[in-house]
């Protein structure tokens, strides 16, 4: 079908169906938040955002996201590079292991960290005796988020690295570039859009992560309560104004991320010809 032509017959029916389906599942709930926030009164809602608990929750979410993004960008790039460029026994096994966080429920993931770093866990007592609190504290929440977002960067870059191949890297070597120069001047620029896309996905997921973080956080107000946990706690406490206002902020951030993703995809398809 060429651009600008309208679908006819069954095509039109199916198109309309899909539009309704997407509207009902995606746009409608969002409008729901808007409506509920309005009913609670905009002023009241936004006043709740100024409370120390809310501010703390958002600050916590953003700093966890920052850590997760930095660590998983470095780690994910390295992981993808090793998978694409090194040959070793168990490479395929490692590659499928990277997908595990997609398959495991975040709640289970959080629980695993409790078992590992909890007061009676495997490594917990050792950390405790060195004065480091992992679970029910910031490090545990970063760990849980890292686990959940591990695949994004690696899985976005891996196919790009494979497709680009080693030719350009070898060419750079023959022109006198050191392996480090080859990475920064040749490899990195050719995977940059995939990398950015992976980073954006990691941000989106880190901001919205709930299950894993909830389990390891212990949701202590003003301490380990992230934005999503804050929303959940307000909601179960019948403090709807606070819940809706915070939801609105998170949803707005999501739309921003969606917008960035779209423009990245556009740039990518323009350049990867």
């Amino acid at each position, binding site marked *: 079908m060429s651009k600008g032509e309208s679908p006819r017959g069954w095509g039109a029916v199916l198109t309309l169906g899909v539009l309704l389906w997407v509207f009902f599942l995606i746009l409608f709930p969002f409008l729901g938040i808007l409506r509920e926030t309005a009913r609670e009164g905009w002023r009241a809602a936004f006043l709740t955002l100024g409370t120390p608990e809310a501010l703390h929750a958002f600050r916590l979410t953003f700093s966890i996201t920052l850590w997760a993004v930095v660590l998983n960008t470095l780690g994910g790039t390295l992981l993808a590079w090793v998978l694409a460029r090194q040959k070793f026994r168990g490479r395929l096994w490692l590659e499928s292991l990277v997908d595990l966080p997609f398959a495991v429920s975040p709640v289970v993931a959080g629980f695993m960290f409790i078992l590992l770093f909890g007061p009676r866990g495997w490594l917990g007592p050792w950390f405790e005796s060195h004065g480091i609190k992992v679970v029910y504290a910031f490090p545990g929440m970063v760990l849980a988020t890292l686990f959940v977002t591990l695949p994004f960067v690696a899985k976005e870059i891996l196919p790009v690295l494979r497709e680009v191949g080693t*030719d350009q890297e070898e*060419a750079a*070597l023959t*022109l006198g570039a050191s392996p480090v120069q080859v990475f920064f001047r040749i490899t990195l620029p050719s995977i940059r859009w995939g990398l950015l896309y992976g980073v954006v996905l990691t941000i989106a997921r880190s901001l919205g992560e709930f299950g894993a973080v909830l389990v390891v956080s212990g949701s202590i107000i003003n301490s380990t309560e992230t934005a999503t946990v804050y929303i959940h706690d307000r909601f179960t406490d019948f403090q709807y104004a606070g819940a809706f206002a915070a939801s609105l902020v998170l949803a707005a951030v999501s739309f921003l991320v969606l917008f960035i993703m779209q423009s990245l995809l556009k740039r990518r398809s323009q350049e990867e010809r």
Partner: protein
Amino acid sequence: MSLRLENLTKRFGQTTVVDGVSFSVEKGELTALLGPSGSGKSTLLRMIAGLERPDGGRLWLGGEEITGKAVQKRSLGFVFQNYALFKHLTVERNIAFGLEIRKVPPREIRERVESLLELVKLTDYGKHYPHQLSGGQRQRVALARALAPRPEVLLLDEPFGALDAKVRSSLAQWLREIHSRLGTATLFVTHDQNEAIEISDRIVVINRGRVEQIGGGEEVYDKPSTRFVASFIGNVNILEGFLDKERISFSGVEETLAASGRGGSGPVVILVRPEELSLRKLGESGENLFPGTVQTVSYRGSFFQVEVRVGEMVLRAVEEKRNFHRYEWREGERVGVSLEGWQFFEVPEGHEEIREKLRQLGYIE
């Protein structure tokens, strides 16, 4: 500076892909590394560049051994088969890459890039990206990029393989020109014998990882030192016969060939190029003239190809148009085939498939 290979060997698992190869390329010399696909020629080139590690042997550049030297420290230019241009950089930046790495002052880089763009006739394309260029243009950029740091040795892997016939031949001639202007030691890999003969000073024929023959184009074509070289370079008819002192006989053919001065006896392989065969009216007399029947006649543009059955053999002859029209050979017609030149090789022990065939034909026990 000259490049010297000494007994270079490479194995992938159980298979030896390059097997004790030795030769050298002198400064100012354009050498072709010619062989069929899978003969190990590309692996050999990659070892010279340092992209593969040899399992044995040594490499010398001038007086210095470079066998274990890192790729980036050898001053070799390499042109990849698929060009391997940096997609995210403009033509200018591609060419400048090797100079930027060497921290050449920007002004000098600009001048060098400009003169190289002129050399490869792409003056107006500096700001283009590789995807905006044609295959031939990309090839030229790849060459300019490899030449920018002024390498002592230039290596090219199937440089014209991906181009169509016309572009290929003009680029090949142009490479010849550039080579003589720069005077580097140049080694290029090709599977195309015409390309090798056309532009190189010397040809190294390689098969199954071993050097079969090294020599000039004429030498390799006219005096092949092995059966492989003869059959790989140019079209050739391969006849299996039996030498008995002065005469060579063939299965199902009354006439014999005069093999002057060879003596001895045993199975032999005879190689006759199509242009060394000429067709005569039946009944003409002469030495080395076999009677046969025309099997197929096919038009090939500038010439006709005629296949003639002689005994149990089918010989391919090439007839120039003018010659052909004098006789107008037809399929089924009886003709005389005159062998005006040939090479023959005694079949060495170990060529069991040929020996087996000759055994079946009753030539040998």
